[in-house]
């Protein structure tokens, strides 16, 4: 049981390059989330998904796209990277609140992205 995994762990991009971050969970969670963490700012929600094929914007969605083709995977794409997207990116997942369980989130180890 690996929990939430993220690929890659580190990446350096040049301005204008594109990349995709992959998140996978093996807990059969309905909900998945992408956050970015910047110094002194806590976690900010980029996009989230409440189920396969469904995504929605979070607090800071500009410059990012996401897809959830399979329940266990949630992809975050940067089409044209900018230095302002230098950050640590975390994926998380949780059960649907309709299950009647608590909405605690389980986090991946993070991807450290630098855009030059």
């Amino acid at each position: 049981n690996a929990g939430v995994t993220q690929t890659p762990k580190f990446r350096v991009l040049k301005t204008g390059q594109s990349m995709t971050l992959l998140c996978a969970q093996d807990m059969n969670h309905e909900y998945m989330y992408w956050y970015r963490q910047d110094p002194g700012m806590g976690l900010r929600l980029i996009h989230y998904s409440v189920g396969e094929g469904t995504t929605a914007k979070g607090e800071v969605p500009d410059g990012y796209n996401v897809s959830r083709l399979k329940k266990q995977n949630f992809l975050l794409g940067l089409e044209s990277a900018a230095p302002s997207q230098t950050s640590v990116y975390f994926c998380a997942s949780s059960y649907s609140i309709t299950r009647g369980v608590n909405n605690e989130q389980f986090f991946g180890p993070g991807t450290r992205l630098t855009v030059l």
Partner: protein
Amino acid sequence: SQQGEEDPQALSIQEGENATMNCSYKTSINNLQWYRQNSGRGLVHLILIRSNEREKHSGRLRVTLDTSKKSSSLLITASRAADTASYFCATSEGSWGKLQFGAGTQVVVTP
């Protein structure tokens, strides 16, 4: 915008001492959660307190919630060097799972 704000931003204590950190929030909540983040790692869920609860314990952790003051506190008793980490509060408002995180309290426990 952040819902929860932790206080203090940083805390330095010695092993065996208690560590207390506070979280204030702005709107009505369903529950409030505390997470720990070790350096370079992802967040780990510690404890959840519902809006109709006032206090909750888990091992050396004690959480209180005062909905009238829109505030919560996390107490770590008899701290250990392994408790060195950043601690975040997160509030759950709506009818589903989205959380809003504060900026965190960085705790350093020295042997």
